[in-house]
């Protein structure tokens, strides 16, 4: 395997509505910041790959329009995934492994304030039996949370504790949308949104963009003070029909974690893409994380959630802490689909 390192990362503020900005206008400063963070210019980039969803913009080919932010002249090697940009990272990682490229610029963006994200997400379900019923993402996560409570492994208090940690961690994150000191008791006194979920158990909906630069090991060694290596990466998908899988655990996460080598050495922190608080608990279990592992030191998706970026942001936030010397070995996780259907796990190391 060829060494691949995260060289630079940037994220826009995560806000409920980026009023007066379009996708390209949100992206341009973020792309420039990620390149600057990597000590590179566009001329150093062999491949550009993005993740976004045209249903969010409500316009066909909005991902092609976003290329105006890149400066694709005279032309460039480019690709797009209609998935979280973490999968654009995976495609770029594969392309480096193939030997065809040495560097890649990855980005994701969403202006989710244009539409209703929970309803839009219902349309990614099976088109014959589920999508016509419009089951929104919050209701599906609530069904999953109820099943989790019925196992007796967790109580609603545990969900609230995840939120307390997220809000507290987010105090140190200037891009976070939701932050603050809150108590479990205060959270449990809040009304239900979709029982057993309260509003704070659900990720906020954010407008924004993120970008990352990765490079093959030889480039990383010459440019980065402290390259963050992707030591292992894998993703696994489960069946489409929710009734056919155990929603109280995540087999795909466990398999991906095994393949990525999570258990091979001590993990210090983990950035997990759990858009709903109970899913954090499921992921912690399935990843086999010890209780002392710091989970979502950025605040995670409960503090800010740019759909199509939130997975890439887990890589970026974990890498940022390794570069700063806060940790040497971290887990980055990304998810896609309802109720943790599709999961990616990576191990990032500073050595």
């Amino acid at each position: 395997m060829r060494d691949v390192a995260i060289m630079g990362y940037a994220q826009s503020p995560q806000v409920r509505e980026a009023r007066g900005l379009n996708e390209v206008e949100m992206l341009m400063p973020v792309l420039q910041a990620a390149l600057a963070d990597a000590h590179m210019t566009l001329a150093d980039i062999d491949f550009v790959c993005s993740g976004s969803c045209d249903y969010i913009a409500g316009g066909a080919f909005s991902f092609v329009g976003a290329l105006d932010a890149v400066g694709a002249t005279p032309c460039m090697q480019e690709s797009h995934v209609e998935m979280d940009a973490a999968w654009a990272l995976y495609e770029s990682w594969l392309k480096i492994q193939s030997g065809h490229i040495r560097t890649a610029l990855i980005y994701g963006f969403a202006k989710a304030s244009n539409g209703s994200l929970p309803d839009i997400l219902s349309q990614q379900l099976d088109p014959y039996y589920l999508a016509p019923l419009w089951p929104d993402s919050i209701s599906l996560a609530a069904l999953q949370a109820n099943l989790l409570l019925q196992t007796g492994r967790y109580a609603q208090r545990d969900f609230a504790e995840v939120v307390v940690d997220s809000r507290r961690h987010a105090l140190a994150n200037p891009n976070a949308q939701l932050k603050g000191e809150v108590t479990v008791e205060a959270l449990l006194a809040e009304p239900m949104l979709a029982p057993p979920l309260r509003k704070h158990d659900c990720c906020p909906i954010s407008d924004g963009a993120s970008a990352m630069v990765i490079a093959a090991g030889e480039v990383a060694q010459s440019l980065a003070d402290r390259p963050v290596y992707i030591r292992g990466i894998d993703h696994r998908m489960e069946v489409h029909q929710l009734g056919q899988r155990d929603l109280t655990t995540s087999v795909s996460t466990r398999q991906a974690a095994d393949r990525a080598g999570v258990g091979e050495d001590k993990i210090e922190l983990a950035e997990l893409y759990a858009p709903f608080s109970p899913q954090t608990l499921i992921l912690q279990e399935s990843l086999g994380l010890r209780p002392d592992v710091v989970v979502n030191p950025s605040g995670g998706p409960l503090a800010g959630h740019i759909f199509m970026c939130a997975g890439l942001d887990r890589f970026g936030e974990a890498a940022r802490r390794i570069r700063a010397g806060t940790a040497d070995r971290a887990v980055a996780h990304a998810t896609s689909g309802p109720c943790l259907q599709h999961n990616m796990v990576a191990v990032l190391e500073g050595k």
Partner: protein
Amino acid sequence: MDIDLEPVAVFEAPIYLRYHATSARAITPFLHALRRGILLGHRSPATGKVLFPPLGSCPESGQPTSEEVVLADTGTIISFTTVHLAIPGSKLKPPFTVANIMLDGADQFFSHLVSGCALEDVAIGMRVRAKWRPASEWGYSLENIEYFVPTGEPTVDIPTLKAERLRLAQERRHA
């Protein structure tokens, strides 16, 4: 199970999603100008080229653009075609001519309708001018221009025009 059952060919599951989009940083002044009958472009700081309509970025460099340039409502036909087939949902009745028009002062063409002459007289290099709708009908749309009509000026050689525009852009960039 009766294997002779007719296959189900149709079931209805209507999909509708509502969006609430607002105009962005670069488009907003462009639309307000259009409402007043003014065509506003942006000059790219990276290439010196004038972009119309302005989208807030220079696609060649990925750099933001903000320098506004007021453009004439005259231009040159770069290419055109005549549509003879009715387009579903379109209010345009065929035959009609769509042209790529480079406004005077711009380095990028945009598409609009050409009329006011016989279809077969439309030509590449033809000089055209906007035929505006009455000002009382103006909105935030390029439909304020009903179509472009020939000015009667001599036809322009496109390679010469492009070379001249490129030279001017480079001069501006180096200025």
